[in-house]
């Protein structure tokens, strides 16, 4: 491209966007991508390919000529199926006509929700470590993100007591994402009830990102919206990516009070129009005939989860037992390294990629995220390599201590 002298593109860029930090793992990504023979435990999506019958349903829909726009809200059959799923799985009752909308992944739903409710200066509570997009989305909506750290001592669950300390008169929204990326933490019933009481007391709204709800290993999935009095206060966000191994399809949904939905659909129709019909057809098949696939994948994740936690503890890393999603979040403090040092040196010496904890917020320092959405054989090899690396670091540390 030829650039005319004197044109300053930067001057045109909105300062809020300009001030957004670039993804914290960009530099590390380049390093991983340029190294050969890497086993990556840094991937945030299932290693399974979308089940064949779901792909086949999409192909057939194309053959039958489903290539047009759908309703802004999404295919009526799909909304019906989503409402049916939420009723059967969580005991939630939503009107598929007025309370369910299909979105481009759960990410769009979070964006719509925040843009719909945030006034400039409104504070958004975000427990961290957390997925990287909540803060930037809140900022772009004009809100003020207020991060609330969680700790390994609390099993990375957010407690009502801690949350209350961060509530101010400007607090409007609480974002919950449990089971959590990157920690794998879940909220138990008592914790959810205590948070619900707080939400009521301070008249807050909850955006509950339940994209990992199905990937739960300590019992059936739970929805925050299903707590007494919480359905109208919760904008429930979910999708098909994680449970059905459908990340690339970009199909998610939002279920909420009809007034919220009516407002959200306005933004959605002017910016997106509708989610792609192909993905919606696939999602419909997933909900109708995909239950067994989810069970099969969850059983497989669960076995890998136990193996990885056991191996990490054996090599001397403190590791809380995750009860959801497909991540473990071990502490690497015992090695004396920072998270970034650990990740970079592990990559260089043993060719295993993990994500440094601070990529998910400053309370992630001292931790790394390992995804076990990787084949068993690769996981075992990665654990062998990591064990060698940790053993070397611990031996070095002990020698240094002996010297001193």
């Amino acid at each position, binding site marked *: 491209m030829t650039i005319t002298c004197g044109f300053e593109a930067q001057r045109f860029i909105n300062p809020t966007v300009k001030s957004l930090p670039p993804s*914290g793992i960009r530099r590390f*990504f380049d390093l991983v991508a340029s190294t050969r023979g890497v086993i990556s435990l840094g*991937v945030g*999506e299932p*290693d399974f*390919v979308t089940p064949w019958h779901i792909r086949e349903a999409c192909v057939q829909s194309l053959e039958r000529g489903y290539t047009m726009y759908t309703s802004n809200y999404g295919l009526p059959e799909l909304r019906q199926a989503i409402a049916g799923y939420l009723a059967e799985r969580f005991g939630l009752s939503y009107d598929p006509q007025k309370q369910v909308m299909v979105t481009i992944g759960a990410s769009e739903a979070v964006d719509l929700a925040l843009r719909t409710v945030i006034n400039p200066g409104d504070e958004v509570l975000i427990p961290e470590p957390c997925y990287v997009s909540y803060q930037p989305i809140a900022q772009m909506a004009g809100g003020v993100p207020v991060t609330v750290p969680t700790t390994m001592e609390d099993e990375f669950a957010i407690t009502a007591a801690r949350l209350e300390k961060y509530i101010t008169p400007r607090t409007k929204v609480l974002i919950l994402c449990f089971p959590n990326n990157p920690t794998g933490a879940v909220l138990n019933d008592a914790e959810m009830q205590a948070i619900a009481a707080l939400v009521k007391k301070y008249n807050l709204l909850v955006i509950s990102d339940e994209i990992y709800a199905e990937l739960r290993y300590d019992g059936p999935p739970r929805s925050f919206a299903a707590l007494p009095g919480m359905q109208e206060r919760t904008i429930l966000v979910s999708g098909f990516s994680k449970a059905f191994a459908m990340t690339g399809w970009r199909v998610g949904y939002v279920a909420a009070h009809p007034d919220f939905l009516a407002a959200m659909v306005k933004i959605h129709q002017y910016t997106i129009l509708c989610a792609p019909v192909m993905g919606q057809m696939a999602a419909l098949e997933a909900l109708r005939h995909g239950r067994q696939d989810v069970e099969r994948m969850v059983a497989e994740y669960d076995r*890998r989860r*136990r193996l990885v936690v056991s191996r990490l503890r054996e090599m001397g890393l403190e590791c809380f037992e995750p009860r959801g999603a497909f991540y473990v979040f071990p502490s690497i403090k015992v090695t004396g390294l920072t998270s970034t040092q650990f990740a970079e040196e592990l990559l260089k010496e043993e060719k295993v990629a993990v994500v440094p904890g601070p990529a998910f917020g400053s309370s992630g320092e001292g931790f790394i995220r390992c995804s076990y959405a990787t084949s*068993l*054989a690769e996981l075992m090899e990665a654990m062998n390599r990591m064990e060698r690396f940790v053993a070397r670091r611990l031996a070095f540390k002990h020698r240094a201590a002996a010297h001193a």
Partner: protein
Amino acid sequence: MRKKILELLENNGKLNAKEIAIMLALPADQVAKEIAAMEEEKIILRYHTLINWEKAGEEEVAALIDVKVTPQQDVGFDEIAGRIYRYPEVKSVFLMSGSYDLSVLVQGKSLKEVATFVSQKLATLEHVQSTVTHFILKRYKQDGVIFEDQEADRRQVLQP
């Protein structure tokens, strides 16, 4: 518990008792005991490796043979099946419903070797009425494994 252990071993015979125990949240000594018991009881018959011989550069000819037989009094098909499966060339034998009785998988070094086995050994057995030989031209999928799997890991190496 046995079913879960077997399901894991069926897909990966290299797993040891300790690894299985961790994955299933069971005591390791109990898993080891169960595996030994199942070996003893011939529930676990062999730890098998699925090999793509073609890729290994080895010639391999196999044929599925539909065999029609005359069942015998008292022993039915079992007697004749036994006479067939004792041949080492025969890799598997199934009793089938439908238009023939036994499905026999025969493996050999060459087309001629297999054909000779069928015409001289199998077809000449008493009570064998007829045989139809289908040579296997290509293996696409066996025991749940796709041989030339196109579904490589296409994920980005690192994502938040």
